[in-house]
């Protein structure tokens, strides 16, 4: 699925934001979710079926469902079953009867309406605090009817931010590797889907082995490794045009790429015999700079969000461990000192954590630690969990989990940074190497 009028949406969202009238939240009784603790009690929220008219009935039902699923899957909300609702909202402009929503334990209420307006879909919603009886957010969107799911995600993002104080992550996509065929001859395709698993589509035909796709900061391009030529190399692909190009002609294999936060550079590993070192390539000048020069395996580089540092894995000390260095290559310092092997480090978008894969006692875990190596926490542990990626708000991680054996294969999972709310992602087939996009709007 393509969104040729992405720019138009952006414009309309910006316009809508200007028009937003957000009620003041009285701090003493306002409904909000406390995310500072461990286990989070989901906030009961009622999402009233959106009022519809003029051929927008399907859009209304879809949007209500998208909002409910997004909020429910986040683990921070408990969307109440619509058949428990006492009041049937019939007029979008009127205040709801708060008593009837309080009676079903709803803390927040969403009302909305969707209708066709000159070939365009117009959607409006209002978010109400049931305790304070205040409207706390409202917004209006106008778009092509085929973007109705995106509007649902955008509304869910506003609700999430209003009630948690943290940016939402629902209007995002995930690029991953779609896997089919027997284990000894897997067909791997680059694929992309919405964050909730909808609209999956392949980006490559499966002829060439492809691995480790990563998004550019504007979410329009991906960088990945392909075995298309005689030597496996790092490539770039434009998601919309599918146009691809090789990132530099090096004598040996290039792999494990990632974009810099400003999108101007790609950092990756170049193989030289038995060693692999980390290099940064400037996409405009095509100039290349070597960051590590150690006779060992140095790979999995990931920038800090401000672009000043790089976290990577190296076995220079004997086993895979995580290191941090300045972006000029100076000050290479080991930060992982727990029991086991540490790999696939990824800096969180808020800069506070580094997610990793850990191998210990025959188990593969996903965990997080602070950039100085302290505060290690394991979020999930099992036979084989690998390759974390962050949602743009730094609250949720996605990774893949392999089931062993002949019929086994990888599936994508998401987990909250607290380690709670683990959920399998719906994908068409086996799927691995997920990478979460930045926010699309």
């Amino acid at each position, binding site marked *: 699925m393509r969104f040729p009028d992405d720019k138009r949406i952006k414009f309309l969202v910006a316009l809508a934001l200007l028009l937003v009238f957000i009620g003041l939240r009285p701090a003493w009784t306002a409904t909000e979710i406390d995310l500072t603790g461990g286990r989070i009690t989901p906030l009961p929220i009622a999402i009233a079926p959106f009022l519809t008219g003029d051929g927008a009935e399907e859009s209304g039902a879809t949007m209500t469902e998208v909002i409910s699923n997004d909020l429910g899957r986040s683990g921070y909300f408990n969307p109440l079953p619509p058949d428990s609702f006492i009041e049937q909202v019939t007029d979008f402009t009127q205040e709801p009867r708060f008593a009837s929503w309080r009676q079903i334990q709803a803390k927040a209420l969403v009302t909305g309406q969707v209708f066709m307006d000159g070939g365009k879909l117009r959607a409006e919603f209002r978010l109400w605090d049931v305790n304070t009886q205040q409207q706390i957010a409202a917004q209006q969107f106008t778009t092509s009817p085929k973007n109705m799911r995106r509007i649902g995600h955008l509304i869910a993002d506003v609700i999430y931010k209003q009630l948690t104080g943290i940016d939402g992550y629902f209007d995002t996509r995930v690029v991953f590797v779609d896997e089919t065929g*027997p*284990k*000894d*001859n*897997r067909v*791997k395709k680059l694929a992309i889907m919405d964050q909730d698993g909808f609209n999956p589509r392949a980006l490559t035909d499966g002829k060439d*082995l492809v*691995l*480790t796709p990563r998004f550019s900061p504007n979410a329009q391009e991906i960088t990945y*490794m392909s075995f298309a030529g*005689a*030597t*496996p190399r790092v490539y770039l692909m434009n998601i919309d045009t599918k146009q691809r190009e090789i990132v530099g002609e090096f004598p040996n*294999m290039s*792999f*494990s790429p990632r974009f810099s936060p400003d999108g101007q550079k790609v950092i990756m*590993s170049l*193989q030289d*015999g*038995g*060693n*692999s070192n980390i290099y940064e390539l400037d996409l405009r000048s095509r100039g290349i700079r070597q960051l590590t020069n150690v006779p060992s*395996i140095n*790979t*999995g580089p990931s920038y800090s969000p401000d672009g000043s540092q790089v976290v990577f*894995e190296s*076995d220079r000390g004997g*086993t*895979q461990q995580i290191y941090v260095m300045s972006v000029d290559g100076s000050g290479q310092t080991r930060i992982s000192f727990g029991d086991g092997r540490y*790999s*696939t480090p990824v800096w969180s978008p808020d800069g506070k954590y580094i997610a990793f*894969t850990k*191998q210990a006692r025959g188990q593969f875990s996903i965990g997080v630690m602070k950039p100085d190596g302290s505060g290690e926490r394991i979020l999930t542990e099992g036979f*084989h969990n*690998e*390759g974390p990626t962050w949602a743009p708000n730094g609250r949720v991680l996605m990774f893949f989990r*392999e089931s*062993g*054996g*002949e019929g*086994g294969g990888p599936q994508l999972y998401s987990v909250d940074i607290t380690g709670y709310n683990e959920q399998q992602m719906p994908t068409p087939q086996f799927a*691995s*190497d997920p990478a979460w996009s930045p926010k699309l709007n």
Partner: protein
Amino acid sequence: MKTSTSFKIAAAFCCVLALTACSKKNTPDLEASTAGQAAPGSEKDFAVNVGDRIYFSEDQSTLAPEAEETLRKQAAWLSQYSSVTVQIEGHADERGTREYNISLSARRATAAREFLIAQGIDGTRISSIAYGKERPVAQCDAEQCWSQNRRAVTVITGGAKTS
């Protein structure tokens, strides 16, 4: 529908022929019999009489004595058939992370390649590629399979005799 029926008939006919061929030969070990018949200097000769692969310990790229023995035989064969070119495929088992396994398998392919060069084979005849954990041969969920997947395979890319 017509093609599918005729295909079935053809397939059945082939089976009959194959069965006849087998029973006529009456050899208890067909595998060994054909191996002995591999034309010298052919791909089959290399795979069966020399050995095209070596194995590694977990997370290691050092060559075990058996691996060195196989590589010495490969070097001798490659010296004899000097027009043959090869590619060494490095592989890792599934019990590692993706990027590291790519590097590890490159290290294994390099170890095999450097050994062959040390035995006097011209390096320009030997290319290498690292597959990481992407192409296992054994699929079970146990060490007996993983150990078969930690390998370097010498694949003939040109110059072999046709058998």
